[in-house]
């Protein structure tokens, strides 16, 4: 049946590069991948020879990386699988901008659900430091239309900043004030960055030997607006990182998963939505959420939502229709009808910029459109900082990006969505103290979770929901 998995699929083991870094000249891209794969395989108690035998008999390989430009290497996925000893197992690359990692994990799940394989390893990597930052910005901007948009100031932080401006122009004075939004932006930036200080592999962790003093360590609220405007209205510390990094996740069918781990995490829902790459071509339809039947089940039952959404021009440049579509499809597959804020214990979302967190919480239906800031405004501030790994949304709320996300932990594009799947898996398996080196970021007893991956200015977005399998 369309919109369902033909059999159960579990995430069973994950691994990451030893340290995410702004620049790690010690490792080539496939050597970073080796560190991640070695950890994922080793955690299953398998020798590499045993794992490779499983792959040969019952498995497949997905490799994800974003831009050939960064490493100056076409078909890098072939070099990666060669280096990892995976030949001649079936293997291919999945790519979709910033959602590359998330799409790769979903492809691995689908490969098993279809019966084509019983075990798949999805490996993601990106090595962004071999060009300087300005060149890297330009490569990323090549993921806008190079005919029409790129020649006009092509720069992704500007694209997102323009969306932030659109969000302000749409909702300020209606659901929120400008001060409340700026307050929420700064709290989000501090939350991500300071969470990462308890994740020893994070690029901004003060414990990471590859971190530089100017780009690591704790920050305070006032540091954010002191960091300087990058593109109006966004500050430097509102923005994500650029990273050298890799990660790997192993997924399996139920019987094999249970034979390899006593803590399988089952996939319950997959969603993947799209929208125009040129943001100017996105619809601006009054009542668009209703007309396109994009409301979520819990929203339909609430007259306040209906009133708000009848007038809202959607998606405009303020929201991601692709994210809403992905969430709706994932929730339908998972049978989620209640308020998502109260369903999930933990989410890892694509915080490319602080505005994306605000937008994504609404796309995911955590709060009504225009209302995300309040979730973060409620966070207490002590000595200029919000609490480490705070629960968001009150007693029945959830944890957002304990890992530090793209702002604090890493954004090595082809690896990012994969890394966040690993973070969720480790949370569910109770491995955070072991893997991060600190217990503070462990979410207490998580049973359901979501990870989200996002490309461009919202051109391709994935949502994957999972539940504990023991």
């Amino acid at each position, binding site marked *: 049946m369309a919109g369902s998995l033909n059999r159960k699929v579990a995430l069973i083991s994950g691994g990451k590069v030893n340290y995410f870094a702004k620049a790690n000249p010690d490792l080539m891209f496939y050597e970073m991948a080796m560190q991640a794969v070695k950890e994922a395989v080793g955690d299953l108690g398998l020798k590499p020879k045993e794992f490779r035998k499983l792959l040969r008999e019952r498995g497949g390989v997905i490799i994800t990386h974003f831009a050939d430009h960064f490493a*100056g290497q076409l078909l890098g996925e072939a070099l990666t699988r060669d280096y990892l000893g995976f030949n001649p197992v079936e293997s291919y690359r999945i790519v979709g901008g910033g959602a590359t990692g998330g799409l790769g994990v979903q492809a691995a799940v689908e490969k098993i659900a279809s019966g084509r394989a019983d075990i798949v390893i999805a490996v993601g990597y990106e090595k962004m430091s071999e060009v300087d*930052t*300005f060149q890297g910005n330009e490569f990323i901007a090549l993921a806008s239309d190079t005919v029409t948009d790129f020649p006009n100031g092509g720069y992704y*932080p*500007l694209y997102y900043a323009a969306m932030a*401006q659109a969000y302000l*122009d749409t909702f300020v004075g209606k659901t929120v004030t400008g001060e409340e939004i700026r307050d929420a932006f700064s709290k989000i930036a501090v939350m991500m960055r300071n969470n990462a200080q308890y994740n020893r592999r994070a690029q901004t962790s003060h414990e990471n030997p590859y971190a530089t003093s100017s780009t690591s360590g704790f920050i305070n609220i006032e540091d954010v607006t002191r960091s300087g405007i990058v593109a*109006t209205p966004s500050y430097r510390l509102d923005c994500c990182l650029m990273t050298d990094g890799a990660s790997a996740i192993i997924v399996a069918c139920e019987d094999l998963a249970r034979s390899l781990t006593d803590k399988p995490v089952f996939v319950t829902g997959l969603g993947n939505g799209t929208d125009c790459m040129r943001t*100017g071509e996105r619809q601006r339809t009054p009542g668009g959420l209703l007309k396109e039947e994009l409301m979520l089940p819990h929203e339909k039952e609430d007259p306040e939502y209906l009133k708000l959404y009848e007038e809202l021009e959607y998606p405009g*440049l303020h929201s991601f229709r692709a994210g809403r579509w992905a969430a709706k499809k994932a929730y339908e597959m998972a049978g989620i009808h209640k308020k998502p804020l109260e369903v999930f214990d933990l989410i890892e979302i694509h915080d490319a910029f602080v505005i994306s967190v605000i937008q994504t919480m609404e796309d995911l239906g955590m709060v009504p459109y225009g209302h995300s800031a309040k979730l973060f405004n409620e966070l207490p501030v002590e000595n200029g900082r919000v609490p480490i790994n705070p629960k968001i949304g009150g007693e029945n709320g959830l944890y957002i990006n304990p890992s530090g996300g793209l702002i604090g932990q890493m954004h090595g594009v082809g690896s990012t969505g994969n890394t966040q799947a690993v973070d969720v898996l480790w949370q569910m398996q109770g491995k955070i103290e072991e893997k991060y080196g600190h217990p503070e970021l462990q979410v207490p007893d998580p049973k359901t979770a979501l990870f989200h991956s996002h490309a461009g200015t919202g051109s391709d977005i994935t949502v994957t929901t999972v539940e504990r399998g023991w």
Partner: protein
Amino acid sequence: MPVKDTILNRQDKAYRHARTDVVIVQREVHIKYKKSYGGMSPYIRGIMGREHARLLYTICDKAEDHDDLKPLRFQVPRADCPECYAPTHWQELPGDTRFIVETFSTAVDLAGISFMDQLPVTVAWIKAVLPDDENTELDTLVAGMVHSEDYKKLKKGDDVRPVFRKNPASNASDVMWVLLGTAVEKFPSGYVESKNYRVQKNF
């Protein structure tokens, strides 16, 4: 694709992060593309017209085959309709079309390498409103660079006007935008007014 490798000086900042004795080279790659604008070529030709430049869009009027049963107007133009797959038709935006800022941002501190020496760079997403009885809006916004005396004063809803490169580069930046009423001496360097779109005219 000429590729040139040279050993990198160990004083280069790329070595600062290394914790092992790696060898790093500087690799230079030079690529030339011959890029066709295909079916969009009339639009590019239009904005290359200097003082006679024209802004073209395409329309598909097969309303009955569209999701919302309306004609669709595209700028950025497209040769084929994405909803009914019929070929579109070219139209010219009249001189008294209103161009209105829908959203914008100004890159102040960082940018891609092509724009680093031009900061601050403002990019706006601009809505075109036709001078017909219904004030029909094009269905898409066009992104373009806005040159203004003070980017901090720019706001949603501002009226802007197109200006065109005197020596066209044959790309989408051959059109830039200035606020309605901007004096000629305040135009971006190298850009001129088109006879077809007066900057001073009031609407």
